[in-house]
């Protein structure tokens, strides 16, 4: 029995190794979302600003938008926030925010202080929509086309480079398609 115990570290290491090995090569910044080319899952979430105002999946209609998942607990979200503000004000990109597993007051204070780039803000304190979208960790940014179809997913901070190289060309493309 004692001899057997000595093998436990080995078994654990092998199990961990299998998981790590499976993780290799998956591009974590463009994680294959199960939802790519599927519609945004059905949801019913309150507005961040107004708890009585309820949004459903039909808000994703008529135009190509960015859906940005963020939280005040997420340091990287702070890094990308200025770029989002710039995109909204200078480039006129419609951005929807999904405030993920956060506190309403903290989130509102954040937007008050740092600027609000979002056309509309969904409040997802339980992370339900985030779970359905397969959110890996904030920040994440999705491109959703005019039919409400998830087209692209970027994991990590949106900066100037991500915008010009990954997001802008695709947004232009989906705009032309629709």
């Amino acid at each position, binding site marked *: 029995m*004692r*001899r057997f115990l*000595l*093998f436990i*570290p*080995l078994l654990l*290491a*092998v199990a*961990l*190794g*299998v*998981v*790590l*090995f*499976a*993780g*290799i*090569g*998956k*591009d*974590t*910044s463009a*994680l294959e979302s*199960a939802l790519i080319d599927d519609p945004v899952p059905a949801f019913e979430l309150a507005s961040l600003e107004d708890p009585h105002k309820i949004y459903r999946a039909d808000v994703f209609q008529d135009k190509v938008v960015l859906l940005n998942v963020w*939280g005040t*607990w*997420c*340091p*990287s979200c*702070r*890094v990308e*926030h*200025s770029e989002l*503000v710039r995109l909204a004000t200078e480039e006129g990109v419609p951005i929807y925010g999904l405030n993920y*597993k956060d506190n309403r007051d903290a989130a509102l*204070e*954040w937007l008050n*202080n*740092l*600027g609000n780039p979002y056309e509309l803000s969904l409040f997802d304190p339980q*992370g339900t929509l*985030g*779970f359905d979208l*397969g*959110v*890996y*960790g*904030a920040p994440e940014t999705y491109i959703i086309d005019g039919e409400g179809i998830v087209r692209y997913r970027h*994991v*990590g*901070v949106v*900066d*100037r480079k991500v915008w010009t190289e990954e997001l802008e060309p695709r947004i232009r493309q989906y705009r032309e398609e629709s």
Partner: protein
Amino acid sequence: MVPEFGHFALILAMLLAALLAVVPLTGSLTGRSSLQAFARPLASGQFVFVAIAFAALTQAFVTDDFSVAYVANNSNSMLPWYYKFSAVWGGHEGSLLLWILILTGWTLAVGIFSRRLPTDLVAQVLSVMGIVSLAFLLFILLTSNPFERLLPNVPADGADLNPLLQDFGLVVHPPMLYMGYVGFSVAFAFAIAALINGRMDAAWARWTRPWTTVAWCFLSLGIALGSWWAYYELGWGGWWFWDPVENASLMPWLAGTALMHSLAVTEKRGVFKSWTLLLAIITFALSLLGAFLVRSGVLTSVHAFASDPTRGTFLIGLLAVTVIGSLALYAFRAPVVHTRVRYGSLSREIFLLLNNVLLLAALLLVLVGTLYPLVLDYMGAGTMSVGEPFFNLTFSPVAIAVALLLGAGIFSRWKRTDGGWLGRQLLWPAAISLVLAVLVPLWLGELKPWAFAGCFGAAWVTVATFQDIWSRSSSRQGRWYGLKRLTRSYYGMVLGHLGMAITIAGATVVSNYGVERDVRMEPGEVAQMGDLSFAFTSLRHREGPNYAAEQGVFEISRDGELITTLYPEKRMYRVQRNVMTEAGIDAGLFRDLFVALGEPVGGDAWAVRIQFKPLVRWVWLGSLFMAAGGVLAIADRRYRIKVKGGAAEKSAAGVQEPGAVAGKAT
């Protein structure tokens, strides 16, 4: 030509590492001392050639040789000369070369300082380190060659060093961290050697301990430097983010801390042998796991290296061979070192065992939190990370528990401690800590549960430590004589424990009583925070060597009296077009005043973050104490006493009763 010389030197180093991995080990297994004698020359040789390669890469950076791809990607002719040096380890390939340089350096050091060790043990230890060097040299040569040329299309100028890394903190942070990570390979090599030859005793522990302590000191400083850098450079004033890359350095630190304590028991009492060996393996395995997590791209992090699946696959192979190989060796051979020494249920042994259990629990929490997304993904359950809330919620109670146990453990004695006596010793620490844990939070603001717990833990450790010094230093020849009689390793332990108390106090106070406000301000406006007023007097433009900056001028005063003027900046680096935040900080032992410029928010107005951070410096001050404690501990006389040949042989053969060493060494 120089880069080719560097590449060639690296290949030669790899060949020497291959010889080092095989020849001395074969010699020790077959008993041929002529082969064992190759260990030291081969160890020196591989270091020399890696050093030549490193010098060649440095030369390419200093001379702006942009025909070398790695230089072109990580440097620029406009970069200040000192950052051209540090840019050598600014990216994956060069930092890996630094890692290998340090690894071969440690190997060389073991070769030099092991004159008193039995030849076959030295041969085994150096061979094991050679195996590790070989693996990393193959890794760099096959997947991450820093000398690769960009011919014939040589760029006119380089892509510049990531502006985040253009900072003193990042110049010294990686070498410190790697000294720690790689230093644990020595303990690992000693453990593998012990498993191979089945000899493990107090002498073994005495040889392994200083090496482990030095590595641990470097890792402590490296982690603190990283945290300090994040605080002033990332611009939002936090000092720990539970980012996967940070966790990758915290995990070996926790395991290494457990290892240091377990080694103490093994040296003094000859017990926990098999456990110590396992910890030595785990600690180094976690260093390798850290390298894998940072360099394979399996986890997203703000500051992971650019990823490449080939590298990930190679590293997991390396991890598999090293970890599975050594754990299998452990599983089969650990019973060989089994011993039976008795100790009571209330003894220093038990306290140190509990300390190990708690440290491992903390380690497990970090491991689970870090790998959670990967595991979920593997099980097909989607991916999500647990984030900061999970760590803060789970890690703090364990840290407090470690502190409480430590305060009591200080008074415990080897073999058996009288419960009633221990209880009486703890009366004063308990009473004083209780008072402080109520008064300090009340003085800073309101009494909060976590602030109470943290202050209690910090005070508990501190008071118990000083009380222990007091009782141990009593002597008939007077207090001063008594203090002088205590050993350096005892004072090292004292500093280490006080360091931990200081860090806990700092972390508790700053996270509970730090005040931060994000305000919209125009030049000329004043923001109030408590009795402090932050006046945004003007905004000016400033040109740096490779960036342009908007610089705010903030005058901070209390009751109309100017305390300090801060100059936070928003920098635009020209080459990479990155915007960086340079916070303005007025640092103090008891509080920092912190101003950072956010974004322009229309007109002349800026989003400004102002912060009051009490005791934030203590977070890093504590790690300085811990590292100083480590240095003091290895300066202890018993590591310098020449072990007589006969005695060393005898104890190495395991003849000596382990308990016999304990009384003498305490």
